[in-house]
């Protein structure tokens, strides 16, 4: 028998970002996973937020301008 507590949609949505940010403890994380496996509406919402977060994450990588990369190489040579 599973010890995982059942949670409702309100609770799942309330915890959604902490779940996506990997900030929930193991028990609460498992409750979220179980809810998302059984609720299509919350699963769709979670997938949307996850993909949007992934798109924002991609903003953290930017092609370094070549002159600036050269400046950094010069800096590294001086160390």
């Amino acid at each position: 028998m599973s010890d995982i507590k059942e949670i409702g949609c309100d609770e799942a949505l309330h915890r959604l970002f902490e779940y996506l940010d990997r900030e929930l403890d193991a028990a609460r994380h498992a409750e979220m996973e179980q809810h998302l496996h059984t609720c299509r509406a919350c699963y769709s919402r979670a997938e949307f937020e996850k993909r949007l977060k992934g798109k924002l994450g991609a903003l953290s990588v930017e092609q370094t301008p070549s002159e600036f990369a050269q400046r950094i190489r010069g800096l590294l040579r001086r160390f």
Partner: protein
Amino acid sequence: MTDADRAFFEQEITGLLDRLYGAALRLAKNRADAEDLVAETVTKAWANLHTLHDRLCFRGWLFRILTNTFLSECRKTETTSLEALAEAQGETDEEPAFSLFDQLHQPFLLWWSNPEQEFLNKVLREDLQKAVDALPEVFRLPVILSDLQGLSYHEIATALGVPIGTVRSRLTRGRAQLQKALWQYRQELTETRERAANDVHDLKTGEHHERH
């Protein structure tokens, strides 16, 4: 520092440069300041490399230096603190959380289309950048640190010098504002397209009438 230290440092910085520059560009919002921020971060990291005991943590450590360098520059130039800004921007006001998903998700359309997936497939990098850059500073920083740099709430709280609960609430409000901005850009684009389509239609109708 040994030659091995130098080789390790050079290899790590070279490998992480695009990420470092990308994070700096989002924080500083302009190229010149971003470049200075990266150069200062690299210099500080080299000077403090001996304090890093576990080199597997190099990346997190380096991005913490980047964030702290940016924040200390902000504190030097800002006359008001982030906390005062938070008050001024009504951080304590309760407002219903805006959800882009709820705006896009229209169950009656789902049998033939999936508007939220379509939105994600089409959303432009420049619109995401614009929405992040437009956030009030007090929400922009936690959003960048969490969604772009992947820092934990605890790490963000330490970097910003605020309690974890504050990080949580600022992230919630920052993300809601960001989603609202993305929704507005989408609405503006739709309106522009509709206007253009109407203009074409009017033009064609006009030609049609002229011919008769």
